[in-house]
């Protein structure tokens, strides 16, 4: 059996599977949308976890960040760059 492909180091929050945990690297674009994402807790270093995704196409998703849960449309979650963590590797 071929070894599983290596996980890319940085990807979009939108691509994280349900149950996936990651650290926020940054937010793409500068605009009102990115700014609000930043304000609600998606700042570099924050730990995020995808808790649910709606069918079909995983849109929208529900994300835990800094003690709150937010529902984000895929388009919004695509703006957040994250680096996935294995479970237990989170900062808190």
């Amino acid at each position, binding site marked *: 059996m071929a070894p599983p492909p290596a996980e890319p180091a940085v990807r979009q929050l939108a691509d994280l599977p349900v149950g996936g945990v990651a650290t926020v690297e940054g937010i793409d674009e500068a605009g009102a949308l*990115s700014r609000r994402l930043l304000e609600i807790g998606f*700042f*570099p270093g924050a730990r995020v976890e995808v808790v649910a995704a*709606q069918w079909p196409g995983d849109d929208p998703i529900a994300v835990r960040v800094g003690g709150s849960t937010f529902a984000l449309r895929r388009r919004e979650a695509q703006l957040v760059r994250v680096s996935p963590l294995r479970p237990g590797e989170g900062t808190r």
Partner: protein
Amino acid sequence: MNAAAASAAASADTDPSTDLRIALVGLPNCGKTALFNRLTGGRQKVANYPGVTVERKEGAFTGASGRRYRLLDLPGTYSLTPTTLDEAITRDVALGRLAGEAQPETIVLVADATHLALSVRLALEVRDLGLPMVLALNMSDLARRRGYALDRERLAAELGVPVVETVAVSRGGADALIAVLERMPAPAPVPARGWQQPSAEQVRDTHREAARILDVAGYREPARSALAAQADRMLLHPVLGMIALAVLLFLVFQAVFSWAEAPMGWIESATAWIGERVHTALPAGPLRSLLADGIIAGVGSVIVFLPQIIILFLFILALEDSGYLPRAAYLLDRVMGSVGLSGRAFIPLLSSFACAIPGIMATRTIPDMRDRIATILVAPLMTCSARLPVYALLIGAFIPARAVGPFNLQGLVLFAIYFAGIIAALCVAFVLKRLRRGEDTHLLMLELPDYQWPDPGNVLLGLVERASLFLRRAGGLILAFVVLLWFLATYPAPPAGATAPPIEHSYAGMIGHAIAPVLAPIGFNWQIAVALIPGLAAREVAVGALGTVYAVSGDEEAVAQTLSSVIAADWSLATALALLAWYVFAPQCLATLAVVKRETGGWRYPLVMAGYLFALAYIAAGITFHVARAFGAG
């Protein structure tokens, strides 16, 4: 308060002769409104900010020192950089920039103690405004039970503002806050400070600073309960969550019919009893006719629906309090998005089931103006509680109360009508999406707050508010129309020797007969035509109007009969079904059109709305009537 009083008061610690203006600022879902209710005892003045339809809620209370506090509940926000009209109001009031609104003299920043990070960040932004501030750690009982830790004094020292614990939902839960406010010095003139929107870098800095402060203060965020995580796994699940939502909505509509049955019976008997008393006590004449046929028959036929409205609101308020509603918005986002609505449109649309007016006002939480307009235009298709009396009357009269499996047939029909409204709204939204160009920029970004047990006190307060609004309408607007209609239906008196019922000769009869030809193709008789006109003022007036029209035209015994049994004998099933279909689209009430004009800043959208709803109502009623007749229901 004048300047002289201000400077005199500045020397004293607390001057009972001056009011202190306080504004509550906080994140959405921090329990701010519950705290407001706790402080003011629920006595509040609800109005709008000048020029905009953002709700302005003010209340007052008096401290032990005798000082009076005027409390303003500002819309919840994550930051002072607004993305919605609501949030812009919070910023402008806090900055003293809103014309006609004095700048608050003290800010109470309400924070949810179970997760402080975002609240402390907001506090850092607000602190820079230079106003005296108190940080209220709300829901501290809950946080404590879940095992939170915090050095409150250290937090106060780091932030440089007093920090108190509050429990908005229990008696005395705001005492610590009041005690701190009592020690606040009399308001001094606030140094004018410019405010600049912080840069992204500054926002990141405030996040870091908030994290540092909470770390220094030894804040340990309480663990999320396993039950809440479990509930989310089920309620947010693509399949299970949808099933749960459907079952929930279905139960609500079943309950509206089943639970309300008994109290409605009592109100009906009471109305009939009073009508008969009046009838026997007074000599025949205009006064007896006005009281018995006009007021009691008309207003009584509307008030009977109070139990159903209370039950509907009981569910809406409890769901609102529990934190479930945003989750429903999450589940339905995909459906909404496919017809070009924002996921955030769900909550305004759900409020529209109660009344389109608060629903349309709630659309100001939708940042994109085109999304907002689309939501406003379809909001009246959500069956509002004012239509419930009309549906309930027709369903009660024409649909047998048979059991269909475990369900009540009447409840099923009501569910189907609500469903028809929702489908119609989705279709209209889809057409609107096709009509407008440009890319979709719909947002969701909605917080799913922690689950909570609904607070019975808050729910009760909301119910009393709604019930009294309904009764005031019944006693005011509806009463006025019913009296006017009684007059039109009674005068002029029929000529001597006339054989037809007197109402045929009255003004109402003339008006009804004049409009009837237009409505005849969709199966409406002239009595319905008469009732539809005042029904434009407020939909439930149509029921009161029918009550009056039939009471005036009926013979002596008819007064004691319920309106429902009268129309069951007089109308065909096809007519009743056509009227039900009419009211799914019913041109909404004038108050709604007025709000739409104010919200959209012109006559264009209210006219579009009235036009398309009239056309849909006419077509739907016509199709229903002719199809029903073809099936032998004529």
